[in-house]
């Protein structure tokens, strides 16, 4: 019983927070990103680990993962299963075009002091524990509270797969938080060609944004192989792909423009996995 409980807590702690806060990396790995034929299925591994793309730590929870069809409407996730180290699910690509699969999370973290006692907002990270008191929210901060520190956290973790000819409807941005607005279609990446991706914050170009690009296959080389790239003033990131393969992209940004009342800071993260093919 104890190992299970410990494990559950560890999983809960790690899985619901954006990559910005953890050395561990959230990732989704599609079986492929380019599909032909009339009966296309993509199967996806989803996990949290240090080494990409090896599931050796915790699974990514399936509750928050959604599917967007090429027309932007919601699609279905099928055959979902969560194992010790990874989750797996399928999506039937029964419509031509580009599909988006991913999670979007937002949370509020923080602490305050009331009557000399420090209390935490958001309670335990992760899903509610049985028997635990309801987590405190911003509304629970009493008038006499001191040392109020509230941080808004948001994150997106998305992958894109295409059946037939690529489309761009699923790239439509909301104008909220850190978003990915690709110029080069993420399912048209080829080794030796430069890809351009634009990042937006609240719908405006995210200039000077640091983006980490890490190739998969960590176990079979010595170096991490991570590259720290920076977007230009127009929010555009240029990425060269030295070799074909799967790559993990992660951008994080902290600013002082939260939308949550009483919050002073917001942390945003964006994660995607892209596939680069040989020419």
């Amino acid at each position, binding site marked *: 019983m104890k190992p299970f409980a410990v494990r559950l807590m560890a999983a809960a702690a790690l899985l619901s927070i954006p990559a910005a806060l953890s050395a561990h990396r959230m990732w989704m790995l599609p079986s*492929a990103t*380019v*599909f*032909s*034929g*009339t*009966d*296309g299925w993509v199967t996806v591994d989803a996990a949290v680990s240090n080494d990409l793309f090896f599931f050796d730590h915790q699974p990514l929870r399936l509750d928050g993962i959604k599917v967007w069809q090429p027309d932007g409407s919601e699609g279905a996730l099928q055959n979902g299963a969560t194992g010790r180290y990874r989750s797996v699910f399928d999506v039937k690509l029964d419509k031509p075009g580009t599909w988006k699969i991913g999670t979007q999370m937002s949370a509020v973290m923080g602490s305050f002091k009331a009557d000399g006692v420090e209390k935490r907002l958001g309670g335990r990270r992760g899903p509610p524990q049985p028997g635990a008191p309801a987590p405190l929210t911003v509304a629970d901060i009493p008038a006499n509270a001191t040392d109020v520190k509230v941080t808004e956290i948001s994150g997106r973790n998305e992958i894109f797969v*295409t059946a*037939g*000819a*690529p489309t761009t409807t699923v790239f439509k941005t909301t104008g909220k938080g850190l978003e990915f607005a690709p110029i080069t279609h993420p399912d*048209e990446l*080829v080794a030796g060609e430069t890809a351009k991706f634009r990042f937006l914050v609240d719908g405006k170009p995210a200039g000077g944004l640091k983006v980490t690009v890490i190739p998969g296959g960590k176990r079979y080389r010595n170096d991490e192989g991570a590259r720290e790239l920076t977007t230009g003033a127009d929010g555009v990131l240029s990425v060269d792909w030295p070799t074909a393969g799967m790559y993990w992209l992660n951008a994080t940004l902290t600013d002082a423009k939260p939308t949550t009342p009483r919050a002073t800071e917001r942390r945003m993260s964006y994660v995607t996995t892209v596939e680069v*093919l*040989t*020419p």
Partner: protein
Amino acid sequence: MRPTTFLLLGGAITAPALTALVSPASAAPAGTVTITIPRLNVAEYHKPYVAVWLEPVGGGTPKTLAVWYDLKKRGNDPGTKWLADLRAWWRKGGRSMAMPADGVSGATRAPGQYTIPLPADVKPGQYVLNVEAARETGGRELVSVPLTAGGRTSGKTELGAITLSAR
């Protein structure tokens, strides 16, 4: 003129080379392409998927001339599932085509030489001819050659000699 013609004759042993004798090679536009699918000594052999297409040199809309795939495959998918493995062709326009395509798609071919007529309205030097082959349990290869009569190249693994001849 003569040396070019002879060179061409030496290279392509198939019928198109004979017709090349009649019309001098360098002046005439390429009329046919001959593609060699090599015989491979492997334990498990499947006939390759092959795509043949023209691309304007300065970029532009590619034109697919032939796609050979397993179009008689039964089941949920009529052989099109693996067309994306012809990944250069797929990206350059294959993904926008409906299959089967009239006058373009056909069954996979056994090892041997195959001659495909080129469209009459293409001008020499303005296009590159691409041939891509992908084989189940095997490799994938892309071979490109400028579209001029007498043009020739050869694949190393999945494709043999590719020869362009005047009509």
